[in-house]
């Protein structure tokens, strides 16, 4: 097809004789073609296959139509016959006779069981195909009627005739007559019986409503508009005429001039304001319905067109010409779209730019209307999105292809026209960098690189025959030519790589930008970003689109399937498609796509298969295990796949069938399974295969078993010989004797080296010469004599050969039979182990966090060591933080006068950003980051009474270090120092603040948990340090909101309690070993007290249980039953792990018998008190105390003025304005 103007989007073409009639199936991808040769063809135009041929007409067939719902079609031909066919039974059901000349067109009514036919006998007839009768004959035309069609909704018929007129008929009378079957009077029935008669005279069934005159030659075709009261007709006067009608009249609207030969057929576009017409001038012409101007013309070289038909729903048309039919679409359906992160930008059929959010599954309102872009009848072809500028590049195809650069509004506010746009001509336009785009002009073969103001910054000639360009990674272009793909470096203006792939039309980049899929009509080629081919695959069905899964699997769509391809080229079907879709994004089980009408759709897919294969390729056993456990991935295909791909050991896991299991087990050398299966099946063939395999493995025990099963005594004997198993060998000899198998006996005797036995055997079978020779050669003279005697011969009568050395059977060096050869550890993969539940890390249940040996070695009692099981403590910090005053006092030291940073005087250094931080913030951490240590210390001193800074030094330096980066700039100069901000979006230098490492969230998720872990694991020294570290880190820190200040307070309180608790327990352990302590009553008392105090700080309940348990055991061991009882009661009250509870209950029962303390200690279980963090003695409520202004730890008053034992920074009893963490 030569198209003048734009290229034609042909979907299907057939070769045949002249095609006179065409009909689309309303649902299936079928088209019926009525041929001049008397044949009717049924084609699948999607697959391009001829489904059936119907040949019963005698002479040319002209009219053809599918029924909308029934499996029927109708045809009419030059044999005057109308035939109704079933395409299911592939037979003609019946023939309607009546016309007296050629039948030109036949059409089904859209709801009534009627067929409308037009004929050269000048009549138009309506037939009922259910009772196969003629119900109406419309006369009036006085020449051939060329075409007659029902109105799609109303009771109207329109007809065209060579009498140069178009007639509109009212058939409402006919409908009334045939649709009121219930209460029919006798008269009606009579009237009905005589209807034909009545028509001839009264003619009330079908009356002419309008006669449209205007054509001055015969009219060939006529059609109603699907929705509007319009009619279009085509005639031999080479004109296409448009008519309009009202209730009462009809008139000519306009004429479309352009055909220069007879116009054969015409129709209205089902959805758009277009008229299509075909003619003997070998053209298809598209007209604008509103302006009646030509929109497009497609010309064919040699063939005249005879008929055109439109698909009722989708954008497809079919034309019949001298040499067959052609199915085509008028416009590209592929919606222009681009994906950026979680958004899809696309252009609807109304030319509206919209975006779709994959996360929220939500469509945006219209962002922009592109009504004015390009020609009104050609949709935008491509869209390229620039996230940095939030702008789009849209190209439109057609005669004067152009691109347009438009900024998207921040949010959609309806269909607004773009306020300003930059445009130019070019076939392809894509963004290649944040501020550059490339435009390809195919006719001049030039690529321009333009900046955002649309001025060309450079331009170059691409390789010859360039058809399209795509993004090629930063600074590069992918240039497509019909035979090659080039990777072109824009900077160096040269092709850096090329790959011979024919006909690439689309390029789809993977999400990580490392791979690209090149799509051509029937091939998918996966390449790396440097254009090295990774894999390629061929599809017989046309490939439409592709997208990449996040895991690096390519999903692509063909006309009827969604398929996947792995990097190694493995591919398979994911699901079938009812209609064409354009994939844009794959996420989990959702596959996002745009359909033909450019609406986003979500397809559900099952990614199991390709996920599994991918996991297999990547040897990601956890993933595979997960898939196996959680999906129904079984069946022959996966087994065959695994086997084929060389993973029999994995396939083994899926198979139940013993035969297959045996095969797989042999293949992967899993002898245990093979033996098991062989036993189950017990077939000789299997045993021998197993034997051979086991022998190859050196597993002679299995070999032995197989030979036993197979009763292969000779092989068994030899096996015993070679493994050195003499006892079994002699048993074999006995068996042989028992069986009377002399050969076997001889063999065994030979193996055993038992000469007597051999001689005996020979004698038994009367082979005396051999017996004699054997005896002789082994020097058994007596035996020789006895044989001679027995045979009555003398030595002289014998001629003896020379006798060599007697045979001694070889001895194995190693007694192999005792055990198997040390075979290589069986190839039990981690995967198999996981399946067998042997690998803990892979088990899907959470590991119970084991905490063991928490000081129990000294408390070892009769019940043996107790293993404690403590669940992971929730990150929630204790609610009641000690009263730590974070008053809203005015911070007096805030320095509020800013230096004028805008000063413009030239020369002279200015202060760095870091110095500004100290001015911008009253938070100590910001001063530290700014390097202003003095002021930071001053702040801390005033806020929380910090006096001893040495422990804070690491934290100070940490904060300081985190805020400076080093940017390499000009060669020869030191790097530029830049300052890292936590206020990333802030540009006002008076508001910027530095980043502070290990912020509150980090501490709560990392350090705090490390602290808990140390507690659980009984590493108190570590835990003590960790919690102190947390306190130091919070002291020099900053948070982002008031609510975080509260969280910080909680964290401080918690860390402080833990520090005290651990300090108590550590000091108890420092008293000495249990023996030493036991001998010194003072120490014993102190030890018991400290263990009791250990239970006081407000630490997490599971941890407190540990403290209580430890205290209980210690008390119990020292016969302080009363204390032990109170601890046991508290443990029980706290609840939790059953083991601990049980332990406590036992103790409780034991102690209740004798609730007395052997050692008096200072611990009143009923009094309320806190622990002094310095002396670790109780501070009973009511007595005065001092505390640390930072961490809230309590002290006896005598410690006032010394450094806090918990944070080691602040002065006890010194009050401040409160720690500032948030400005």
């Amino acid at each position, binding site marked *: 097809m030569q198209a003048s103007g734009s290229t034609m989007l042909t979907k299907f073409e057939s070769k045949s004789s002249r095609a006179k009639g065409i009909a689309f199936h309303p649902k299936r991808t079928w088209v019926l073609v009525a041929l001049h040769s008397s044949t009717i063809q049924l084609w699948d135009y999607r697959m391009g296959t001829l489904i059936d041929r119907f040949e019963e007409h005698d002479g040319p067939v002209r009219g053809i139509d599918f029924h909308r719902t029934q499996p029927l079609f109708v045809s009419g031909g030059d044999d005057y016959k109308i035939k109704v066919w079933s395409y299911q039974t592939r037979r003609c059901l019946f023939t309607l006779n009546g016309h007296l000349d050629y039948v030109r067109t036949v059409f089904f009514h859209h709801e009534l069981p009627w067929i409308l036919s037009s004929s050269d006998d000048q009549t138009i007839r309506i037939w009922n195909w259910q009772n196969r009768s003629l119900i109406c004959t419309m006369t009036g035309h006085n020449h051939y009627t060329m075409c007659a069609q029902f109105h799609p909704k109303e009771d109207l018929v329109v007809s065209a005739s060579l009498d140069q007129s178009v007639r509109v008929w009212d058939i409402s009378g006919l409908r009334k007559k045939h649709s009121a079957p219930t209460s029919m009077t006798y008269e009606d029935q009579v009237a009905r019986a005589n209807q034909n008669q009545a028509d001839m005279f009264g003619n009330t069934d079908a009356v002419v409503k309008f006669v449209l005159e205007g054509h001055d030659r015969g009219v060939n075709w006529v059609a109603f508009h699907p929705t509007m009261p319009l009619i279009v007709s085509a005639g031999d006067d080479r004109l296409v005429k448009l008519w309009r009608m009202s209730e009462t009249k009809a008139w000519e609207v306009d004429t479309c001039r352009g055909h220069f030969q007879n116009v054969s057929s015409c129709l209205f576009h089902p959805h758009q304001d277009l008229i299509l017409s075909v003619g003997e001038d070998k053209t298809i012409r598209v007209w604008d319905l509103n302006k009646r101007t030509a929109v497009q013309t497609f010309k064919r070289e040699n063939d005249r067109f005879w008929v055109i038909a439109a698909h009722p729903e989708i954008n497809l048309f079919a034309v019949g010409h001298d040499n067959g039919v052609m199915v085509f679409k008028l416009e590209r359906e592929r919606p222009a779209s681009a994906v950026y992160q979680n958004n899809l930008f696309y252009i609807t059929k109304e030319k509206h730019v919209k975006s779709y959010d994959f996360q929220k599954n939500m469509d945006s309102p219209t962002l922009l209307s592109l009504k004015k872009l390009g020609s009104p009848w050609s949709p935008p072809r491509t869209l390229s999105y620039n996230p940095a500028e939030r702008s789009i590049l849209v190209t439109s195809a057609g005669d004067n292809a152009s691109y347009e650069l438009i900024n998207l509004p921040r949010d959609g506010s309806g269909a607004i026209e773009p306020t300003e746009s930059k445009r130019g001509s070019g076939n392809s336009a894509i963004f290649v960098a944040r501020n550059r785009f490339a435009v390809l002009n195919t006719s001049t073969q030039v690529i321009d690189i333009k900046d955002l103001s649309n001025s060309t910054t450079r331009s170059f000639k691409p390789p010859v025959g360039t058809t399209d360009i795509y993004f090629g990674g930063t600074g590069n272009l992918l240039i497509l030519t019909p035979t090659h793909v080039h990777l072109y470096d824009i900077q160096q203006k040269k092709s850096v790589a090329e790959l011979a792939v024919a006909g690439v039309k689309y390029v789809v980049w993977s999400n990580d930008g490392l791979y690209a899929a090149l799509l051509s009509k029937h091939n998918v080629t996966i390449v790396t970003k440097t254009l090295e081919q990774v894999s390629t695959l061929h599809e017989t069905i046309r490939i439409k689109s592709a997208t990449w899964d996040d895991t690096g699997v390519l999903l692509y769509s063909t006309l009827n399937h969604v398929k996947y391809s792995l990097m190694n080229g493995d591919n398979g079907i994911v699901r079938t498609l009812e209609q064409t879709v354009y994939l844009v994004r794959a996420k989990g089980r959702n596959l996002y796509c745009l359909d033909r009408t450019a609406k986003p759709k979500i397809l559900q897919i099952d990614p199991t298969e390709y996920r599994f294969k991918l996991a297999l390729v990547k040897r990601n056993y956890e993933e595979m295990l997960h898939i196996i456990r959680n999906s129904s991935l079984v069946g022959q295909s996966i087994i065959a796949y695994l086997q084929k791909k060389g993973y029999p050991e994995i396939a083994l896991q899926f198979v139940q069938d013993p035969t297959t299991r045996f095969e797989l087990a042999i293949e992967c050398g899993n002898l245990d399974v093979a033996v098991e299966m062989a036993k189950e099946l017990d077939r000789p063939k299997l045993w021998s295969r197993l034997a051979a395999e086991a022998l190859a493995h050196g597993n002679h025990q299995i070999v032995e078993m197989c030979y036993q099963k197979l009763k292969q005594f000779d092989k068994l004997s030899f096996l015993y010989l070679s493994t050195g198993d003499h006892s079994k060998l002699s048993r074999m000899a006995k068996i042989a004797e028992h069986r009377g198998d002399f050969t076997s006996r001889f063999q065994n005797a030979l193996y055993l080296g038992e000469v007597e036995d051999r001689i005996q055997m020979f004698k038994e079978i009367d082979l005396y010469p051999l017996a004699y020779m054997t005896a002789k050669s082994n020097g058994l003279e007596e035996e020789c004599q006895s044989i001679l005697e027995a045979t009555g011969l003398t030595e002289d009568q014998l001629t003896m050969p020379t006798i060599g050395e007697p045979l001694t059977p070889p001895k194995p060096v190693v007694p192999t039979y005792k055990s198997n050869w040390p075979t290589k550890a069986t190839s039990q993969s981690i995967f198999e182990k996981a399946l067998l539940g042997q690998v803990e890390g892979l088990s899907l249940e959470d590991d119970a966090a084991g905490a063991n040996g928490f000081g129990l070695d000294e408390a070892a009692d009769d019940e043996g060591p107790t293993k404690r099981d403590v669940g992971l403590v929730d990150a929630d910090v204790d609610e009641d933080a000690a009263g730590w005053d974070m008053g809203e006092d005015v911070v007096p030291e805030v320095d509020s006068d800013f230096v004028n940073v805008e000063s413009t005087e030239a020369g002279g250094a*200015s202060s760095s950003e870091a110095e500004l931080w100290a001015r911008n913030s009253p938070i100590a951490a910001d001063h530290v980051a700014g390097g202003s240590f003095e002021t930071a210390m001053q702040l801390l001193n005033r806020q929380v009474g910090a006096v001893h800074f040495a422990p804070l030094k690491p934290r100070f330096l940490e904060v300081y270090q985190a805020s400076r*980066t*080093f940017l390499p700039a000009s060669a020869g*100069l030191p790097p530029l120092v830049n300052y890292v901000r936590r206020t990333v979006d802030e540009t006002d230098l008076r508001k*910027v603040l530095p980043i502070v*490492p290990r912020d509150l969230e980090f501490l709560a998720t990392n350090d705090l948990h490390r602290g808990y872990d140390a507690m659980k694991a009984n590493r108190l020294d570590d835990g003590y340090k960790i919690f102190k570290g947390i306190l130091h880190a919070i002291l020099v820190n900053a948070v982002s909101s008031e609510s975080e200040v509260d969280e910080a307070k909680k964290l401080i309180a918690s860390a402080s309690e833990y520090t005290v608790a651990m300090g108590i327990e550590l000091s108890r352990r420092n008293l000495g070993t249990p023996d030493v302590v036991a001998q010194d009553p003072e120490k014993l008392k102190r030890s018991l007290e400290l263990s009791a105090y250990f239970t006081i700080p407000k630490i997490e309940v599971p941890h407190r249980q540990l403290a209580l348990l430890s205290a209980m055991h210690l008390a119990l061991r020292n016969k302080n039953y009363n204390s032990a009882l109170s601890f046991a009661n508290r443990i029980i009250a706290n609840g939790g792990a059953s083991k601990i509870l049980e332990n406590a209950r036992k103790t409780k029962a034991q102690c209740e018998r004798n609730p007395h303390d052997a050692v008096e200690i200072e611990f009143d279980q009923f009094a309320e008190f806190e622990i002094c963090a310095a002396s670790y003695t109780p501070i009973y409520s009511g007595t005065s105390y001092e505390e640390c202004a930072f961490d809230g730890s309590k002290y006896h008053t005598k410690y006032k003025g010394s450094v806090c034992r918990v944070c080691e920074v602040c002065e006890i009893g010194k009050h401040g304005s409160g720690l500032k963490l948030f400005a």
Partner: protein
Amino acid sequence: MDPYSAEGELINIHNHFHQGQYQEVIDYDTSALSPENALPAQVLVLRARIALGQFEDVLAEVQGESEPELASIGALAQQSLGQTDEAVAAIKTLAESHAGNSTVQVIGGTVLQAAGHPEEAIALLSQHQGSLDAVSLIVQIHLQQNRNDLALKEVTAARRWAQDSLLVNLAESWVGLRQGGEKYQQAFYVFEELAQAPATSSVASLVSQAVAELHLGRTEEAQAALEQALNKDPTNAEAIANLFVLAVVTGRDPSKMRANLEAAAPTHLLLADLEEKSALFDKAATKYSAKVSA
């Protein structure tokens, strides 16, 4: 025609130099260049060799050469060898006699700035006639002086007459990293574009990309870029220094990086600064003590 412009002969070698691809500069085939471009190309090659640490070789090579370009290269090499005073003296003489020579300006500016004479460096550089090398140096000097305002002015002015130049993009990004906000992202785009394209990728551009990412708070990406940089050059001081900072920012133990840095560049800015701050801390801490010693 300006040989460094987009159509000029020296565009690629010049870009290689400023992208930090020094080896590519040295390997660049200069034989096909027209005679008037031979000397500028040679200067670039010599500067690249100095950047790669071949100070003595270069110094020996230009010894006794009379062209001001080569003489200034000699001064640069001297300074890199630590002979700062001689270098500065040589540059000052050259500046008097050949102040209009752009190579003398650029190299002189570098030497003077590195020797701690920013005012003189600016004075020499500001005599340039549309040299982007000079502009970018001026921008850097302003930034080192913390005069972001002046640096911004300089870049904006240069943007007007040399829009598409690599150096303007780079200098603008340097300024952007000081301005922050959206400018971080824009700077990132520039560095990423250089770092991720195989033809322009270098350690310097990778480190720059990582720095931009660190400022944007994207620590994982920054880590990846720095590791890429270290793969190319395991002893790159800037990459190690920034990795050290990154470790601190993400709350990991930075001591290994610190040891690496001490091994690779014992005189690095970061180490000197930390030394100084450590002393400062100790001094400041002595002012405070508890009333009662425990």
